């Protein structure tokens, strides 16, 4: 299908707050993103099946007072779970950025190492090791993966901003080694935190203390994707922290580009 026919639902509830810039980014690429309130899906004012991509943007859904993303996930599970499962089985794209990643993890559809949908969350995005909210730019390097943007992302160190309090990716301790190896074998790791030279270092380069410096990943089939860095904030050249120092890289654009290309080819 053509890019201009790709319909994207930007799902929101109270406290979702990165939907406008995400919409602008996707719109500027020629796709058809729309804001969709969860209540509109529940009340059947809109249907999930009309879309090729579901995008859960960043924010503090329902306030994130308990654990980030858990309330939004619980509401989805209690209402549109079957529609969403069909969406995933149809190999349509589900993307979660920041809070959206937390929601997908709480839902049990990420990391999706052994099953498409786990009854209990298979991983957790724990509080940062600095134990505080941090908003700053960090360096990333991509891994070889089955994520749809694997080709479009450049093969060198690039930078994007993060802004979260709970972004430390962790697997169950007793199966950590096994699951991580499986993730690597499956090509599920999209990109990892690195230092300026591209080395895998600890805090502050790894801003939250994530296992294996994981910053973004996808499920085993590559159609459900989660990431802590914000592509919509690294989409235009002037958004780049170092734009004023001559750095006009736009890694966020490459990520969306890869996803849209994938959808065009597939549907």
């Amino acid at each position: 299908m053509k890019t201009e026919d790709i319909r994207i639902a930007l799902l929101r509830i109270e406290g979702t707050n990165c939907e406008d810039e995400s919409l602008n980014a996707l719109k500027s690429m020629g796709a058809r993103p729309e804001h969709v309130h969860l209540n509109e899906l529940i009340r059947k004012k809109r249907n999930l099946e009309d879309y090729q991509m579901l995008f859960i943007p960043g924010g503090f859904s329902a306030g994130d007072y308990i654990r980030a993303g858990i309330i939004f996930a619980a509401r989805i599970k209690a209402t549109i779970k079957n529609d969403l499962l069909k969406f995933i089985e149809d190999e349509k794209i589900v993307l979660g950025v920041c809070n959206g990643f937390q929601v997908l993890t709480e839902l049990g559809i990420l990391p999706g190492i052994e099953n498409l949908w786990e009854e209990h969350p298979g991983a957790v995005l724990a509080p940062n090791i600095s134990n505080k909210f941090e908003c700053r730019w960090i360096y990333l390097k991509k891994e070889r993966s089955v994520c749809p943007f694997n080709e479009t992302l450049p093969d060198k160190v690039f930078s994007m901003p993060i802004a979260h309090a709970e972004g430390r990716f962790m697997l169950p301790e007793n199966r950590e080694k096994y699951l991580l190896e499986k993730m690597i074998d499956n090509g599920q790791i999209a990109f990892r935190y690195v230092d300026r030279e591209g080395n895998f270092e600890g805090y502050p380069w790894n801003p939250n203390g994530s296992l294996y410096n994981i910053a973004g990943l996808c499920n085993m089939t590559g159609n459900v994707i989660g990431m802590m860095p914000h592509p919509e904030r690294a989409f235009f050249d002037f958004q780049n922290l170092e734009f004023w120092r001559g750095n006009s890289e736009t890694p966020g654009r490459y990520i969306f580009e890869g996803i849209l290309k994938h959808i065009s080819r597939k549907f």
Partner: protein
Amino acid sequence: MTDFYERVDKRFPVFLIKIRDMNIKELQKLSRDLGLSLNRDEMIRIRSYFRSLDRDPTDVEIQAIAQAWSEHCCYKSSKHVLKKYIIGIDSPKVFLTGEDAGVVELDNDHVYVFKMESHNHPSAVEPYGGAATGVGGIIRDVLCMGAKPIALVDSLFFGNFDYPEKRLPKGMKNPRFIFNGVISGIRDYGNRVGIPTVSGITYFDPGYATNVLVNVGCVGVCRKENVIRSMVNKPGVNLVLVGGKTGRDGIHGVNFASRSFRSGEKVEKTAVQLGNPIIKEPLIHAVLESVDKKLIHGMKDLGGGGLSSVVGEMVLAGNVGAEVHLEMIPLKERDMAPWEIWISESQERMMLAVEDDKLKELLEIFDIWDVDATVIGKTIEDEKLILYYRDLKVMDLDTHFITSGPVYCRPYRIEYPGMKSYQTIPPEPDYKKLFRNILSSPNVTNKSYIIRQYDHEVKGSTVLKPLTGKLGLETHSNSSVIKPFENKNVGLAITSTSNPRTMKIDPYRGSKGIVDEAIRNLVSSNAVPHSLADNLNFGNPEDPSVMGQLYEAARGLGEIARYFDLPYVSGNVSLYNQTNRKSIPPTPTLMGIGVVKDIKSVVTVDIKKENSVLYQINPTFSEMGGSLYYDMYEYESSVVPDVNADMLKKAMENLLSAMEKGLILSCHDISDGGLAISLSEMAIGADIGMDINLADIQNIRTDFKLFSESNSRWVVEIDQKKEKEFLKIMEGTYVIRLGYTGGRELTVKDGDRKILSMDLEDIRNIWNTVPR
């Protein structure tokens, strides 16, 4: 005393208060017992009014009057001063003023809306909740003009962390506790509500140990035709209360904010409101969607004074009245008395005036967002406020009387330090030690430990971020720049300035310097200064010397702004910032907005490359009064830096032309800590050193060259090949060649004499000191 109260209805608590029979002592007791914070004369005026009506008031009526007459709501001490100096700087760009926030024209189609407001008293009692609700309140002020909030600013003044516990009056909270509460409050509210916190001040001084200042600002943008007035101008319009429920939180907040603290005092927690960003966030969406669909006739936020203020002011402005049914209002607690419902300052509420034919569509929008929206009454032809609780009429008052609060022309005494001018001449300092001391002062060090807790990039439009430079080595920006529109390259530069050190010594010159700094900060980022908002924080206005400070500050703020045609489009006054008769340093805080023609031409602080030339713009004077150097070493000086408006204006125009030609690689203004600190911050963000010689700065002491905080100065970086072109454009402005960029050290000489040489890594480490 109980004899003066008569219960009117058995079912719920409404009382008649027999004010007509009271003597003066009894009136004063009434004011205290009901928490009205009204003085003797004001109580007498109320008594006379009801004597003339030939009836006694209900408790609802008395409470409503006390709300409206509080300092917070009617500016009774400051109105006079503000009118004289600050209000009414004529400018064609002012679109609308005198509303909840100032509205300024940005281009043919758009306006921007902004305001700064204090939340000092609540933050002293409950730092977390007080600061959070401050953020919530200012967002509503901008939202209720129909504007989309795009940025937050916060200027905070704390006591030092090492303030001796013993000196804290009983019942006062420790400065560190207050600091942690305030920062977390702003973080948790601002981040959740999804509006970037992009600029601000964090200042430490013992003068704020018992009175923290929390000044919060918000900027929004709006299409011109969508600007909504805070009024209803015809009868029969529905009053729709939207957002949060009404509770007992925030009762008597405004009355409480209009007086001083005493030690050992137990302040009612109920006077501080509770914020909930997760009601506010969808409220913003629902309101903006309704604005876009043109469903709203008038709108105002509920802040100080609650429903009482908001309904009263909206109908008064449109020369109508209102009839409201209190039992319709959704409550947090079932058993609230009618007067409590009417004056509660519960957060996250707004009042929308909606005509009958638009009502259904509006209620549907709020329903999708799960936000309460309730019709609580209608406007009426008579200019009266009539309240019912179920079938009982509990208030029937003339709108003009309620809002006719007194205006005072309080006595003032101006203490001119300028008349007996003096300045200590200290021995020459150990430069390295002095430099280290200033660089590690909590008012100079790297503020990233605060800034990074705020999401300053949400909405993706923070083009120039508060921290800028090489990734991982960022330095402080002069101002932040937001790109408010998707399809336009225009930017809004935002800054906030204040200077308690100079204000303590000379409020007139100090205030002039604060305007100067706002202009400098905006120009540094290549923005044309456009408009200002003021937030005046002072002590007890009943003290003539405090009133004197207010007069002098207003005079200074007015003078420079007028010269630059910079209107004050909104303002806020916070008085009674005193504890046990000790007032805070006079603290006017400004929020300045500048317009950037094309965001891609923004200039930043960090040095861009090696072998560039560095220039200082405008001369340095021996004005050491209020400098960090003198303050830290306790040297006395009454000579606070003055402002030569002519010189500043010429330099500003020249510098902006040089920026337009792309000649300025980086730029930083010179303020706290003087030239030495400006150079350091420019070097830190780039990881590029400098070789400086101070010989060309005119004939003053070397330590003054490095650490004087004279106004109107900048440092700029120029490509060597463009030097001639730069000098030509700067004609008419005094410029001083300082040296070159390069290397890994900051080296300073004065002529042949070596003054300072320090590795950049060391400088960064000292600057990274986190206050403990």
